[in-house]
């Protein structure tokens, strides 16, 4: 079996569990995003796979081979660090060459491989610059080039875009997809940015407090979240949560609510944020404050009735946060 397989992986630090029994597989050519708030264990997972940290229990298999105890240098993994970790005293070309040189790759082959990857990333004209002379986006590409050059058995990326501004992030996303996803080595991509994960990854694993919350396709996670945490972590503006009878919560995404002429939930407009292509309305209702997302052109007036498709309802148990399935429209009146 090829690809990356993580079995029951745990990491304890003092009496704190950074990672608690993680199970994952990433197939060759697949890009899996680890998504979660800071401290959820996503970077820990990455460092364990890289060999920069040792697990307390569990196994890591790469191409069927158990690499759990192997030193980092022998695992043939590549990692793009959040800070890029470019050697500040070396030029771009030398940054790329160092690893090859140490592994005894002959000068000619080295030169050729570097030239290829520089061209792939359109860095050819920057080869003699120092990292300090590069922009943030350029640095990220050099770090990516260094990782690709490693011809890794698994590619690890630790928040590679978090130091870039929003516009650049958007520009680079398709580029990153082109370079990473679909190529042979499996990709493990850590991010706290849901948009990045949704837009880039084949599958997403949502982590919280060291535990896997849900693993699935981006669309699956959004439309069919396993629990309250996943439902509220994904989606901006955040999902509306209405308290209901029996210690239950009804989750309704802001884009699923709509004003109706028929009888529904009475709402009064409190405040409006105009976002250009859309507008966010903050509403006062008998069930608390709700967020409603509408096309920017619509003018529902100051007070109206609210309705939603029953199929979009997401029910949770308030205390445990567990999803209540098969709990449908007939219960809506229980509000």
């Amino acid at each position, binding site marked *: 079996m090829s690809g990356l397989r993580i079995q029951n992986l745990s990491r304890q630090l003092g009496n704190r569990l950074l990672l608690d029994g993680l199970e994952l597989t990433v197939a060759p050519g697949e890009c899996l995003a680890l998504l979660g708030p800071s401290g959820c264990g996503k970077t820990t997972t990455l460092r364990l796979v890289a060999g*920069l940290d040792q697990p307390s229990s569990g196994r890591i298999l790469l191409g069927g081979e158990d690499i759990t105890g192997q030193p*980092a240098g022998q695992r043939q993994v*590549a*990692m793009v*660090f959040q800070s890029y970790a470019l*050697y*500040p005293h070396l030029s771009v070309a030398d940054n790329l060459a*160092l690893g090859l040189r*140490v592994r005894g790759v002959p000068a000619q082959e080295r030169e050729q491989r570097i030239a290829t990857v520089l061209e792939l990333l359109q860095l050819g004209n920057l080869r003699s610059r120092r990292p300090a002379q590069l922009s943030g986006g350029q640095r990220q590409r050099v770090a990516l080039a260094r990782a690709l050059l*490693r011809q890794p058995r698994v590619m690890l990326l630790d928040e590679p875009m978090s130091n870039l501004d929003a516009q650049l992030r958007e520009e680079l996303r398709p580029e990153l997809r082109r370079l990473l996803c679909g190529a042979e080595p499996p990709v493990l991509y850590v991010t706290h940015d849901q948009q990045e994960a949704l837009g880039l990854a084949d599958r997403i694993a949502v982590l919280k407090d060291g535990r896997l919350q849900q693993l699935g396709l981006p669309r699956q996670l959004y439309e069919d979240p396993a629990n309250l945490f996943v439902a509220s972590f994904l989606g901006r503006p955040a999902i509306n949560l209405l308290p209901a009878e029996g210690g239950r919560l009804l989750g309704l995404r802001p884009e699923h609510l709509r004003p109706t002429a028929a009888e529904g939930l009475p709402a009064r407009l409190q405040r409006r944020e105009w976002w250009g292509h859309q507008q966010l309305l903050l509403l006062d209702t008998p069930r608390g404050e709700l967020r409603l997302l509408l096309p920017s052109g619509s003018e529902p007036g100051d007070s109206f009735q609210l309705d939603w498709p029953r199929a979009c309802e997401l029910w949770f148990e308030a205390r445990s946060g567990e999803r209540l399935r098969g709990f449908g429209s007939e219960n809506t009146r229980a509000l």
Partner: protein
Amino acid sequence: MRALVLLWSLGPLFLQLFSSLVTPETLVDPGKIAGGGHWTLANYRALLGASPSFGRYLLNSAVVGSGTTALTLLLAVPCAYGLQRQRGAMRWSVMAALLGAALFPTVLLFLALLGLARRFDLGNDLLALSLPYAGLSLPLAVLLLRTAIADLPPELEEAAQLEGLDFGERVRHVLLPLLSPALASTAILVFLFSWNEYPIALTWISRADRLTLPTAISRIAGSSVYAVPYGAFAAATVLGSLPLLLLVLLFQRSIVSGLTQGAIKG
């Protein structure tokens, strides 16, 4: 304000320069300068022509200084690296001990160190003098270098680790190049200490041709308290200062940054 500060700092230095370049008659009555040239290089000629020549002392000090600097860095770099990798409590207690040692007035150690020289017959040996000098410089050197190592982002070493560099290769290709500014400023501070150290050299060295600069100067000064050859004095201070002036002017940035970086965190 600035002019006043410069006058205060540099005035005494210029006085020395002036005193070294005039005849004794002019020295005691500078008014004579106006009446015609009484400049002379006689003081310098006398110093350099003496036996042993003053140049010998400069050379001796340079030998001790280089030996000390090399030995200190050789020991301090691994120590600083190891220290930074220690657990918190261990690290802090070693650092507190080092700080205590760095604060300790080294003059109080001269007697016991003299005993050391006697027991192992190290007296009058310039390179052997590097041993206590290196020992005395180590606390500051280790503290400065540890700060520099702590300031390096850990990802750099991790990235090198992932690329398959072993420990030695990481030291050579990543750690040392990144530390070079800190190494330079530490080296200069150690060299300054060694060049200026007095009490230990005074007790370890007795042969005239092995004297380091500070001991040679004090020997000239000690000749007589009253009929002192001040012109020769001044020439000696100028010659003794010149190498340091050059060093400080050349490496001003390193010295200032080295002291300022390491000062507090150490």
